[in-house]
């Protein structure tokens, strides 16, 4: 039995439908990340799970029982939520963290010990008497987290827990999330617009767009096998090409693209109209024709070489337009320059193919059209932490 089950949840705000029939189950002890752009309905979903709002239709089951208005407070006491912009009470840090225990009418003598232990865990030892409203953003977030964790809930809901935090605080918060999940078997649902965070933390990821839960799966499925164009774009698949399957022999398909052809491992049969997804970090660049096992290699001209942190993003025009993400060091060693002739190659297994039927309403824009002009800083590139893209 799932810990929480959402059945066909819909939500409206005025005339706008903010959640479109979402069904999802949350298992004991898992970390589930809900990723999606702002305004996708992530907060709406968390608020429904936490019983803060009534859904327009659908129901929420907790431990197999439907949550009725009478059960609401009882269920809420098994769940903790840290809101997107957490507010602390106009009181001391101690009183803030003790609040959930006080409202549960816990033995007064037991409270100080638990509060002090929790403050120590989140790194706020000695902050007991400080006024909570005078703390910095990172400290406030820690107080909010301590306050949510002190009851040792079965489920912790986090709405953008690290938005606007400095990298050090972000690390601390993420470490705490992982620690509580591991040590206490706490189910954690994190809503985040940052896909890399979803990948760092989650066992499963759900992608939300426009109030719809489009795809739920393991991180590698979401990132390497997006089920739809919108997901592919959101998770950073920069090479999205239109083509048709010309042949398929035992799962190795030939796909025709504008007079070019590539090989992909897929079950799609010959004649099928498809979208082809290739992650930019799967594309390697060499100056000579590669002598490797990669099934696909295209010769073309580097149109853009943009450095971004430890990465270089290279756009190559090989008749089809390809984007490659390579390390800065490789780019420097190859001496990559705009206008240079290079070979771009990738494996047949690095190509993810989906059927184009039914997905044509979201018209594909060619990668070139989406790319920033030459010489301009590329927007929106968040080079992924490579180790995370290759889960051990």
């Amino acid at each position: 039995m799932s810990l929480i089950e959402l059945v066909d949840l819909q939500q409206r705000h005025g005339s706008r439908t903010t959640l479109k029939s979402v069904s999802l189950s949350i298992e004991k002890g898992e970390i589930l990340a809900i990723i999606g752009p702002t305004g996708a309905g992530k907060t709406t979903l968390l608020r429904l799970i936490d019983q803060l709002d009534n859904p327009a239709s659908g129901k929420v089951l907790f431990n197999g029982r439907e949550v009725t208005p009478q059960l609401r407070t009882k269920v809420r006491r098994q769940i903790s939520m840290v809101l997107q912009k957490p507010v602390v009470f106009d009181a001391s840090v101690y009183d803030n963290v003790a609040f959930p225990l006080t409202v549960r009418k816990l033995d007064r003598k037991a409270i100080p010990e638990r509060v002090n232990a929790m403050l120590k865990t989140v790194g706020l030892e000695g902050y007991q008497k400080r006024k909570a409203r005078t703390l910095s953003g990172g400290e406030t977030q820690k107080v909010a987290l301590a306050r949510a964790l002190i009851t040792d809930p079965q489920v912790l809901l986090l709405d953008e827990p690290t938005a606007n935090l400095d990298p050090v605080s972000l690390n601390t918060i993420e470490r705490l999330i992982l620690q509580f999940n591991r040590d206490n078997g706490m189910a954690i649902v994190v809503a985040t617009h940052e896909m890399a965070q979803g990948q760092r933390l989650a066992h499963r990821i759900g992608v939300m767009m426009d109030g719809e839960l489009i795809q739920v799966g393991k991180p590698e499925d979401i990132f390497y096998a997006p089920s739809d164009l919108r997901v592919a774009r959101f998770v950073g698949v920069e090479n999205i090409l239109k083509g048709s399957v010309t042949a398929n022999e035992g799962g190795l398909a030939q796909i025709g693209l504008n007079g070019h052809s590539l090989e992909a491992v897929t079950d799609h049969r010959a004649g099928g109209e498809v979208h082809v997804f290739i992650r930019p970090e799967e594309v390697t660049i060499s100056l000579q024709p590669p002598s490797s096992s990669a099934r696909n290699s295209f010769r073309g001209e580097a149109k853009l070489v943009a450095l971004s942190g430890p990465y270089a993003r290279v756009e190559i025009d090989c008749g089809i337009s390809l984007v490659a993400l390579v390390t800065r060091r490789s780019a420097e060693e190859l001496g990559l320059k705009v206008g240079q002739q290079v070979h771009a190659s990738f494996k047949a297994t690095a190509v993810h193919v989906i059927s184009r039927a039914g997905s044509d309403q979201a018209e594909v824009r060619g990668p070139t059209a989406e790319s920033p002009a030459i010489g301009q800083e590329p927007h929106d590139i968040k080079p992924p932490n490579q180790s995370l893209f290759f889960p051990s």
Partner: protein
Amino acid sequence: MSAASTILAALVCIPIGGLISFRSFRGKRFLLNMIQTLYSVPTVCVGLFVYLLISRRGPLGGFDWAFTPTAMVIGQALLITPIMIGMTVSALSGVDKTIKDTTLSLGASEPQAIWAIIKEARFAMGAGLILGFGRAISEVGAALILGGNIAGYTRVLTTAISLEATQGNFDTALAFGIILLCVALVIAVTVNVVQQRR
């Protein structure tokens, strides 16, 4: 006496104000308009209304409250009820909406959440208390009708002022007025000190 009526009114009005501000229901706006209209109810009307309730022939006549301090406390409490409810609602609506969600998601029941929000709004709530007290201590109409201005029993500063003034003792009347303001000052300072300490 005014303090008693303020406390009595607060005990009733703060929870009512809390519920009104906490819940959304049909006709909430209309109700708030009505409450705000009643801010300006004439004190003599309230006095008369309570008098009709507690006089020998009234529904509460059996208690024999007419011309007693009890009657005055009831009258003043009723008089300031709209202000106290209204001030509670506006004080609570000034609190960040997220506080309500936070308290609920941390497991508070509805009364616990209301109480937590009231604590957040304590400064505005204090202002409401002082305003209610001010209206209670300064009114003369209800006190006169319900208490009867009996010396040593139901005579209060305002009714004494009014009596002295009609008798031409303006200096005594003014002196009483100053004493009344001093009492109000002491109360205001006390409320503020208590709030600051928390």
